[in-house]
């Protein structure tokens, strides 16, 4: 059911009133333009003569000519119909903000939703929320587009388990049929969901399942960290997922883990990680990564070592051996079970077996010990999830206990995490029950097991033995098509709900827009079904989900506040407005080290050695994550931060391996592991272990929609099923070459700086001696042109290369803010991606194990802009505040400006990219930014619309714009605060200080472009005598 009037394929609605089909608005619209023809048709229907006077004839004739002429116009005329009954709080042209929670993953970051005329157009982190503190990751930024996904289901379906086509069904029928099944159920009723942590949501689930015998909720996430909780229980007796304090870790050792891409709290981790990377008092954190491939976190490490996935356990044990047995540190040195477990892992032996240079283990152990209590060893990741994942976690826990990190950087009690509660064992138990026919009614919501489980897990087969299967996902995805019903749920921006990502930290989810389609929230469906089937206590109540939510908060959450607000409604409104309710005592956040149960070490054993030449490692892609949002074209076109590839996953191989096997970039190979063989192109990736082939999961969706289908292959199917777990790494592999070579959709073909003055870097020791270390060749060049005068503001930017982790959050924020189009795979292959800001990733050193640096590159807003002089029509000019402006309606598209730009940051509209945009995607545009037509050049504008808003606001208040009044979109979302923007004419502003920093330089300064962006040199915390890459 589409509300609003149609213009060909597009659905427009002028107001919420129209959208809701308010009778007055409809009548007004009907009458406004079509009186006479309507009367004519009515008369014709009634068989009456319709009198047409000469005047009317002329009018109609004139109208006909006008319409004929208008049909020749290039664009249809669109009318703006003002509100008749304006909704409260909506002032056209002014945004309305709502606080809510992000649904990009289950981390539960707090967001502020910017809506314009009733439509969410941009998400920003909620500064008041302690989890993400105002920042939002790339996936979170992209999630606003999922609201407008044209392939969401728009009404309920009866599905027939893929025997025939699904059929539309109405809610009453669906509810009656399913309620009937529930009412007559004798077996188990199971709610299979992804991680849910909101107290009201969990209470509802509990009451629902409690209404049926033997019923439960099973949590299954495609990406889960079950081995962490299991290891926590084994080692310390509490089965929790800790809150990892990367912000307190001055030394970080990563073992096959990529917390910056795949962590259960990515934004929080990135913020913490970034804060420690900044140079303060001439010091910074030290990050060491051992991993089989090159992950995003590994790329940001000071020292990176390529090891086989099964050897990660050896490395951990070797470090423990060094600390306990050789150095005799920590009380555990006297425990015989500890020494027994570690005795076979002497550093020398481990180094030899694993392929590390002599002394590495000692160096790492030493560094960790020096920073004991202020370090963290973190090893949970897909690359480390071999069949021995639990063992690795246990050894990691041992290390963190020895190093006294437990309780300091590992919060196990104050506010542990609820962000990933799915476990393999739960799911396996469910599948067993399903197979045995014990499960009678199965509800599935927020998870896609038919896609993400390997076939040998048996889920799809087991479905056959379940009487009624209902999907409450948002579309006919891989799982939904195997069900009996699809009751499509809402997008989080349309929903009520709550979240408790970490114990004691609560936030609400509130809708920022009414339902776009005839869908129903998950909780609303549960309530409706409970009520219809009279299930238990819940079934007897006639309560809406919103009221239930409010009631739960009143009963359970309200008392937790320290008695400040005495009226619940005040509390509720405040919680909705602020977006977070934090009950965690954050003043003293350290806890004592827990006692380590040495019996846990009995689990440890030497991993089985393999004779395989190559092992398959599956890893989590930073952009696609578990593949849930693959119909999101922004994410699909976002380059993977390490490989810079888009639109498909690839088989990553080390340069040595490619040479040995004779593989070329883009060559299709047939990979076989377990039961599945897939053809996949090869990408030669520096920094990988030569015996490893890495493939990202989260691709190869079959039923995501028009964007996601057939992009890449589904590597989840290669996971190996064991009785009590699934393994994703160190999988057996056979590789067979084919002769076919394809072009890959990469956004960056070249990776070396070629010694150009683009990035400068130095080691920490060099920096300590001389803060301007690494910079060279800077000259103050004379200019023929008179300097620009900046009497008012002078906008500039600073970017700290130490802080930039290359996560792409800025790219996505810019895309959402500035209506940057998506071009598709074919055009990316041609080199036509449209990002206004990009992350250039440079390798240096040894190609087998290079050092990596990420550099955000955007329009430098040069004072001596090479683009400005050559535009023949003056479509690009310099303004009095230092911005280089691009005037879209003057641009004729000669493209000389881009030719003359040495940074190549200008993007050209080769086609009318928005021509075939499927509805309702057009609702996602930011109305403050022009949507460019074909033939026009575009580029970063330093968010000139935000500058203007801030100036207007300041003017209204009779003052100047202060530093921090507004932020550019990229700056606003950057989790590590790598980007700083502000007024260079204000000596107190952050950006002025950055411009004066001794580490500061401008890219390609020798060209005398006088860029407005100051970059700070990259400082690596590794010895200066060591040549990069020689440590592995």
């Amino acid at each position, binding site marked *: 059911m589409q509300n609003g009037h149609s213009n060909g394929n597009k659905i427009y609605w002028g107001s919420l009133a129209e959208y809701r089909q308010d009778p007055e608005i409809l009548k007004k619209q009907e009458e406004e333009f079509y009186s006479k023809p309507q009367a004519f048709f009515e008369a014709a229907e009634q068989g009456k003569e319709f009198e047409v006077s000469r005047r009317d004839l002329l009018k109609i004739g004139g109208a006909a000519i006008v319409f004929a002429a208008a049909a020749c116009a290039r664009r249809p005329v669109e009318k703006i119909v003002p509100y008749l009954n304006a909704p409260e709080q909506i002032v056209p042209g002014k945004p309305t903000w709502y606080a809510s929670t992000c649904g990009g993953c289950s981390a539960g970051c707090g967001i502020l939703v910017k809506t314009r005329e009733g439509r969410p157009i941009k998400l920003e982190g909620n500064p008041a929320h302690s989890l993400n503190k105002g920042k939002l990751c790339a996936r979170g930024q992209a999630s606003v587009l999922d609201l407008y996904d044209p392939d969401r289901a728009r009404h309920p379906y009866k599905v027939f388990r893929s025997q025939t086509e699904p059929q539309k069904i109405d809610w009453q029928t669906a509810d009656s049929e399913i309620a009937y099944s529930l009412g007559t159920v004798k077996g188990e009723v199971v709610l299979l969901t992804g991680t849910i942590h909101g107290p009201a949501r969990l209470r509802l689930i509990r009451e629902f399942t409690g209404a049926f015998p033997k019923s439960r909720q099973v949590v299954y996430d495609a990406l889960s960290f079950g081995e962490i909780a299991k290891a926590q229980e084994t080692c310390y007796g509490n089965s929790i997922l800790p809150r990892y304090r990367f912000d307190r870790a001055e030394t970080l050792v990563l073992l096959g883990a990529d917390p910056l891409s795949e962590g259960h709290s990515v934004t929080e981790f990135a913020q913490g990680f970034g804060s420690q990377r900044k140079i303060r008092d001439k010091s910074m954190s030290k990050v060491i990564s051992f991993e089989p491939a090159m992950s995003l976190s590994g790329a940001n490490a000071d020292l990176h070592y390529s090891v086989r996935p099964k050897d990660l356990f050896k490395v951990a044990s070797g470090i423990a051996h060094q600390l306990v047995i050789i150095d005799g540190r920590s009380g555990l040195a006297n425990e015989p079970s500890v020494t027994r477990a570690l005795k076979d892992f002497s550093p020398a032996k481990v180094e030899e077996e694993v392929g590390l240079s002599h002394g590495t283990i000692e160096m790492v152990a030493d560094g960790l010990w020096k920073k004991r209590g202020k370090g963290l060893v973190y090893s949970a990741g897909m690359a480390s999830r071999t069949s021995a994942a639990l063992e690795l976690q246990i050894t990691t826990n041992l290390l963190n206990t020895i190093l006294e990190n437990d309780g300091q950087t590992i919060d196990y009690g104050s506010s542990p995490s609820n962000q990933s509660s799915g476990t393999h064992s739960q799911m396996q138990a469910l599948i067993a029950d399903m197979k045995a026919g014990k499960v009678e009614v199965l509800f599935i919501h927020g998870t896609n097991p038919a896609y993400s489980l390997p076939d040998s897990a048996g889920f799809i087969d087991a479905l056959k033995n379940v009487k009624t299967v209902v999907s409450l996902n948002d579309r006919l995805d891989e799982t939904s098509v195997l069900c009996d019903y699809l009751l499509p749920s809402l997008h989080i921006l349309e929903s009520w709900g709550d979240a408790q990502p970490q114990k004691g930290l609560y936030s609400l989810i509130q809708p920022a827009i009414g339902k776009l389609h005839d869908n129903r929230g998950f909780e609303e469906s549960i309530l409706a079904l409970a009520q219809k089937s009279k299930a238990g206590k819940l079934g007897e109540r006639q309560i809406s989900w919103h009221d239930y939510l409010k009631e739960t908060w009143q009963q359970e959450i309200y008392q937790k506040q320290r008695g400040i607000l005495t009226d619940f409604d005040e509390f509720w409104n405040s919680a909705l407005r602020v977006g977070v309710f934090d009950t965690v005592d954050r003043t003293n956040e350290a806890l004592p080290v827990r006692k380590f149960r040495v019996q846990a070490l009995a689990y440890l054993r030497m991993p089985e050695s393999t004779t395989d030449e190559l092992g398959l490692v599956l890893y989590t892609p930073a952009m696609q994550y578990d593949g849930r949002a693959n119909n999101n074209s922004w994410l699909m076109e976002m380059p993977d931060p390490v490989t810079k590839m888009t639109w498909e996953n690839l088989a990553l191989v080390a340069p040595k391996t490619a040479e040995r096997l004779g593989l070329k970039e883009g060559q299709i190979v047939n990979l076989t592991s377990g039961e599945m063989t897939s053809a996949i192109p090869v990408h030669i990736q520096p920094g990988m272990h030569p015996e490893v082939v890495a493939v990202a999961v989260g691709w190869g969706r079959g039923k995501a929609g028009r964007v996601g289908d057939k992009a890449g292959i589904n590597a989840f199917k290669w996971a190996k099923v064991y009785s009590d777990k699934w393994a994703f790494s160190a999988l057996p592999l056979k590789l067979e070459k084919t002769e076919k070579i394809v072009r890959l959709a990469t956004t*960056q*073909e*070249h*990776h*070396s*700086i*070629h*010694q*150009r003055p*683009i990035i400068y870097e130095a080691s920490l020791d060099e920096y300590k001696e001389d803060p301007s270390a690494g910079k060279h060749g800077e000259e103050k060049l004379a200019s023929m042109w008179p300097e620009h005068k900046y009497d008012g503001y002078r906008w500039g930017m600073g970017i700290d290369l130490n802080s930039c982790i290359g996560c792409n959050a800025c790219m996505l924020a810019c895309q959402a803010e500035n209506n940057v189009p998506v071009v598709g795979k074919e*055009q990316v292959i*041609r*080199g*036509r*991606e449209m990002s206004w800001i*990009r992350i*250039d*990733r*440079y390798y240096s050193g040894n190609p087998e194990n290079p050092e990596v640096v990420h550099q955000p*590159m955007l329009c430098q807003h040069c004072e001596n802009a*090479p683009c400005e*002089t*050559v*535009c*023949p*029509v*003056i479509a690009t000019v310099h303004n009095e505040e230092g911005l280089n402006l691009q005037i879209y309606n*003057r*641009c*004729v*598209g*000669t*493209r*000389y400006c*881009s*030719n*003359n730009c*040495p*940074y*190549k940051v*200008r*993007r*050209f*509209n*080769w*086609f*009318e990219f928005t021509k075939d945009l499927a509805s309702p995607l057009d609702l996602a545009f930011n109305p403050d930014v022009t949507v460019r*037509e*074909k*033939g*026009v*050049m575009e580029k970063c504008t330093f968010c000139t619309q935000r500058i203007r808003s801030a100036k207007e606001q300041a003017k209204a208040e009779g003052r100047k714009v202060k530093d921090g009044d507004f932020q550019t979109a990229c700056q606003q979302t950057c989790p590590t605060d790598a980007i700083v923007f502000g007024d260079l004419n204000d000596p107190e502003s952050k950006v002025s200080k950055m411009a004066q920093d001794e580490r500061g330089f401008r890219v*390609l300064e020798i*060209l005398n472009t006088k860029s407005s962006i100051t970059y700070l040199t990259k400082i690596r915390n590794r010895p200066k005598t060591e040549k990069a890459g020689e440590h592995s």
Partner: protein
Amino acid sequence: MSVIDQKISPPLIDPNINMGDVTFDISRPTEKKPSKLWLALFILSVGAAGIGALTVYKLLEIGTGITGWNHPVMWAFFITNMVFWIGIGHAGTLISAILFLLRQRWRTSINRSAEAMTIFAVICAVLFPVLHIGRPWLGFWLFPYPNERLLWVNFRSPLVWDVFAFSTYFTISLFFWFQGLIPDFATLRDQAKTAIRKKIYGILSLGWTGSVRDWNHYEKAYLLFAGLATPLVLSVHSVVSFDFSVSLLPGWHSTIFPPYFVAGAIFSGFAMVMTLVIPMRKYFKLEEYITLNHLELMNKIILVTSMMVGYSYLFEFFIAWYSENPFERFTYWNRATGHYAPFFWLMFLCNVVVPQLFWFKKFRRHIPLMFVVSLLVNVGMWLERFVIIVTSLHRDFTPTAWGTFKPTVWDYSITLGSFGLFFTLFLLFAKFFPTVSLAEIKGVLVNPAGKKKGEEAHG
């Protein structure tokens, strides 16, 4: 005047030819029905031009993305074609204007065709800057016309200089060429056998009577135009070269570009004149007017300009090395050894190596060979512009922005279309206009009033 000259220097035209022969020989092709060969070539050219028109339609309908342009290679075939065609035009103007001022009488055989070639080449050239821009329907914004928004164009931009240069060049060349044609149109009018021919040539000849006063005006105007057109030979292509040299790209930003481009323009222009004139003289039986001596003289010019171009290539490489500028060094190293290296070396072969054959008189006077050489020179000169534009763009300052350009079928089709348009226009010219300047050839005859040679043939 001409008789005295002919006594001192060797005769340009066979002394047995008189004025009547000239009129007869040169106007006859315009009076005959089109030969089968002409028709076949014409249909092919029109077909090629039609493919070009289809490309233009697609370009306007779908967008510039149908070509192979991308980030960073935003100019490729279209600008290559533009420079290629405008360069070719320079030979015609040089022959018409500069050789006139230098009193090189041998120019009279070829100047009409060469000048026609210039007009048609400039027409082809002018299309490309319009078509390659993103919004061609707004291309008129490049002209400084009075407007309500009080907007000027950016006079610092070489593209605006191009606008002035091209429009000046086209206007002057057109008027110059047309003015020279007036007496010839009058001749054709006077010989016209059908009413419609008389009418059309009558209009075109603007009432020429052949009186002394008319000739006086003609000579004065000719001299004036020659004087106006002469600096254009040097300035127009210098301005076109500024499109590149004013930018900061390594490989473009080079002070040698103006003389280098002008030399290259003359080089390719003469080669195109050769390509046109060698078949034309054979099929229209004009060998006695466009003699082997004329061809040899043109080959000498080709040799000289080839050496100037070769010098420029070598000097660019030398300066890149000598400058120690890493960007310059890389650009030239990449040009010779990188992705487009085969095109670079083919260009070098065609432009520098092959014309060296013309050191030898035997080769200078060998017609099939010089025809092949002229074709190769044009291939080489097209490649030169391609190499300059694409290799400099595809790998410039920021390595992460490097890319490669892969032409699509539409890049090829527009190029083919421009050749189609050019040859269509030239074939029409060859059919309906006198291809040799009747008036001027008569000025270099030894025995202008001698016995009619072909008297028996026509009555």
